[in-house]
């Protein structure tokens, strides 16, 4: 992980921006029964097939106020499709995930992948940079 430059945001600006702390984000979790019934609706779960990326696990991490150490899950393993809430869940997962991401950014928490993508966009205008062929994404993003 690398750190961004410190950004000072005062309380008024924070409220104006609609940024929340963890306790406030938690209030937006409707009573979740952790039934797991929506996990097959999640496209990320359907590919990776592990509980860690399921909607249920993300709600658990928010409930346990474990956002900082789970940054990669919230940044990388949700495509904000909202399918998890179409049939079985009355929470607004898209809203929750967005708020968690805002919280992480506000608290200068990013993963190396986020940082590399952001730098590529700044320098090259594209998330994957200027490489024409990418053989190994992990290597490309400096994760190996």
């Amino acid at each position, binding site marked *: 992980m690398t750190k961004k430059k410190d950004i000072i945001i005062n309380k008024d600006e924070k409220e104006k921006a609609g940024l929340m702390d963890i306790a406030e984000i938690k209030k937006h979790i409707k009573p*979740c029964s*952790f*039934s797991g019934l929506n*996990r097959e609706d999640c496209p990320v779960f359907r590919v990776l097939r*592990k509980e*860690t990326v399921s909607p*249920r*696990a993300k709600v658990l991490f928010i409930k346990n106020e474990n956002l900082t150490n789970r940054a990669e899950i919230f940044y990388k393993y949700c495509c904000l499709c909202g399918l998890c809430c179409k049939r079985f869940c009355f929470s607004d997962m898209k809203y929750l995930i967005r708020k968690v991401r805002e919280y992480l950014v506000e608290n200068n928490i990013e993963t190396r992948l986020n940082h590399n993508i952001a730098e590529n966009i700044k320098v090259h205008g594209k998330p994957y940079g200027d490489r024409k062929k990418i053989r190994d994404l992990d290597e490309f993003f400096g994760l190996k």
Partner: protein
Amino acid sequence: MNKHIIKIVGRNNVLDSDEDLEAYSIDASLLERRPALVVFPKKITDIQKIINYCNRINMPLTLRGAGTNCTGSAIGTNNYIMDFSRMNKVIEFEYENKGKFIRLQPGIVIENLNRFLSNYKLMFPILTPEQSACTIGGVLALNKFGFRAFKYKRAINWISELEVLDGTGKYYNINNKEDFENFIGTEGCVGAIASAKIKLIKNIENFSMDLFEFEDIVHLITKWREIEKKEGLISLVLFDRISSLFLDLGEGYHLIVEYENNKGSIIEPLKMKKLKNKIEGVQNLLADKGYIYKDDPSLPIDQTYDLFKWLNTNEIPIAGSLNENTVHCFFNQEQKNLREEMYNLVKKHQGKVSSNYGYGILKKDYVPQDFKRKMMRLKEKYDYNNILNRGEVLDYK
């Protein structure tokens, strides 16, 4: 990271990071038990090697499908968890000459299975409220019944062959019902199902429904007894006053009946679809209202009045199939301490505390004596080191 386990299944099929173990510490029971490691088998030999290794190091192994179980049977403190989510292939499928069957790995999800079979106008008829996520392995471990249980009974009736590894890693290929009963309905405490050959049926095309409303429990029970004897009955679902209001069915108790013929008064497809949506969606609706703890006691029909009255007095909603006199009830956070009182009431009336969801960790103290004796006998024969789902259903050794 355990090198032996990695050698069996490969690095990508073993999880032990902090976030993975936190995610696997829960299932639908709302209990939390943090495991030591999670492993994904991909084939039968993987399951066998993992069980053998766990026997060598005396490591309890918890078998997990989708984790939709509400009695804590998919979690375990400091256990290894064997997650079957990646064993989700169809091994064999016959729908023409040799009869209609399909051989599956245990991690196949029921809804995905039926979606695939619908292309051939076939179905596996055990449709549970958890079918969107629960696996065939989970359905067999609990020997579950579904919405249409009055016709299709329990899952064991639909199996023609099983491949199982017992708690010592010994392999069995079983094709008779007597031996099925050792591994189906024993909650994964005796053996791990490695594949199942299941019988299929054609989709039902001609059916009808009825909707009855009652002001009181006595008339409801009278009508229930009458309907149970009707020809062509597929499903019989009860909604009490509370769940009826949530579902916009009106006040009072409601019975929804489904027939495999035209004997019902409701035959319009759209009306039937609306009623079916209510039946299939009620658990989620109740969860959204805060009723997140579910139970499934069953009683002799002439004893159900007291249970209904108790549930009514305590404002605990009832919603679900009445198969085998099961009363599906739901508790919210404030009511959850009443569950034990209900279990004692059910026991007092010679009922079973669980009909479909199993006993797991949560209801271990209420396992009927005859089932406990059966499980002891099976543990002694198939899992004497008590590796599989240790601490569930009974305290063996």
